[in-house]
């Protein structure tokens, strides 16, 4: 089956950190070297396991930030009272090792053959798998129209801002800034609501495919708004994030 990079059995394998790059004050992208990576689809995630010297182990899941065919990368947001995210975003350096298993997930994925138009709606770090989808769409040369609505506290908190701004013309990227806006901001503010969707959502008659990712409350609210706009439930794919 072309394009599916799915393993029947998942095993943990050692990954070495190839590079780290800070996206914002609290968010970092980690690129990994893997010996035996079967490839992945945009939207999939992987599980990370860290083992301390005393044998203590912690596991977390992170969306893959890169497109199919690109080196595996994850983007991690530092949670203030977290146990794993402060380590990954502040301590971890190239050459360090972790275990990963993946890729995981064949529901929340997009391939060019799935078509569009695409409506991608991100809440905070929920943008990570949607960014992978946009990268994949671009690399594949897909002409499916795409719009991203990205809800963020402020412009400084927008992850991948420079890259997302480059899509002008090939994809429609809009931010809604919920807490702080820069002077002269002409874009959306506040929570995603029906008025905002009236301006950005494809009409249901165009058979759009929607992907919503972010905290549970965000996802449920937005999914409800899309279903109320007659998006069929099986054309609204959701992925909920929660702090561990």
């Amino acid at each position, binding site marked *: 089956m072309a394009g599916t990079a799915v393993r029947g059995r998942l095993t*943990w394998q050692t990954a070495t950190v190839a590079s780290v790059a800070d996206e914002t004050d609290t968010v970092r992208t980690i690129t990994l070297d893997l010996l035996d990576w079967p490839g992945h689809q945009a939207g999939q995630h992987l599980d990370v396991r860290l*083992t301390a010297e005393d044998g203590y182990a*912690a596991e977390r899941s992170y969306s893959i930030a890169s497109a199919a065919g690109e080196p595996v990368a994850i983007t991690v947001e530092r949670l203030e009272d977290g*146990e794993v995210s402060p380590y990954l975003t502040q301590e971890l350096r190239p050459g*360090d090792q972790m275990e990963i298993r993946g890729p995981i997930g064949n529901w929340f994925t997009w391939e060019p053959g799935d078509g569009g138009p695409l409506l991608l709606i991100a809440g905070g770090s929920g943008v990570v798998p949607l960014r992978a989808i946009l990268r994949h769409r671009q690399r594949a040369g897909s002409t499916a129209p795409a719009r991203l609505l990205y809800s963020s506290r402020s412009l400084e908190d927008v992850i991948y801002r420079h890259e997302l701004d480059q899509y002008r013309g090939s994809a429609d990227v809009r931010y809604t800034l919920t807490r702080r806006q820069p002077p002269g901001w002409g874009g959306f503010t506040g929570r995603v609501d029906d008025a905002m969707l009236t301006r950005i959502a494809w009409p249901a008659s165009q058979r759009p495919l929607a992907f919503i990712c972010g905290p549970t409350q965000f996802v449920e609210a937005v999914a409800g708004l899309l279903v109320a706009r007659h998006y069929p439930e099986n054309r609204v794919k959701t992925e909920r994030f929660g702090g561990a």
Partner: protein
Amino acid sequence: MTSPVSRGFHRLSRPGDARAGQLPPGQHTTADFPVLSAGPTPHTPLQEWTFSIREGGATLRTWTWSEFMEMPAETVTVDIHCVTRWSKLGTVWRGVPVPALLDQVAHDPSYVMAFSDGGYTTNLPARDVTGGQAWVAYGYDGQPLPPEHGGPARLLVPHLYFWKSAKWIRGLDLLDHDQPGFWENYGYNNYGDPWREQRYAGD
């Protein structure tokens, strides 16, 4: 295959871990109060809420919320221990001692099964809910018990792992013979003493 060590990674150090002598084996302290549940938070309005003691399908006694508020209540400070390894020391609760409720029915069961909104159950020997060991708690930290922590009322049995302290409790079934409740059915220990680390069946 041994897992590679992730340089510089260690478990989170937590306040109060220095008092490790007070902790059951395998536990660590937490400053926050994690919310764990097996299902959506119920929202039974207080005017519909009842607490019942039942036996063999018959209801022996029921309290409405206002009747429940007239029962003798105590404020207690206890340590709680979750089987997922967090412990919280010095938590303050207000509630009705379970014996005050059981005394209202002239029965002497060997076991009880706590049952809750949403279908959750957990079983306990009757002697483990006697004096000074168990309450039906409706206040936490000086405030009404919030729904995500089991409000309006939950069972509080701090000497056992906290899955025995059933959230959203609506009553007790009196039993002659022990029966496993929800997690006990899924491989968790029938009794659950944290000091003997009785997490799973057979421990």
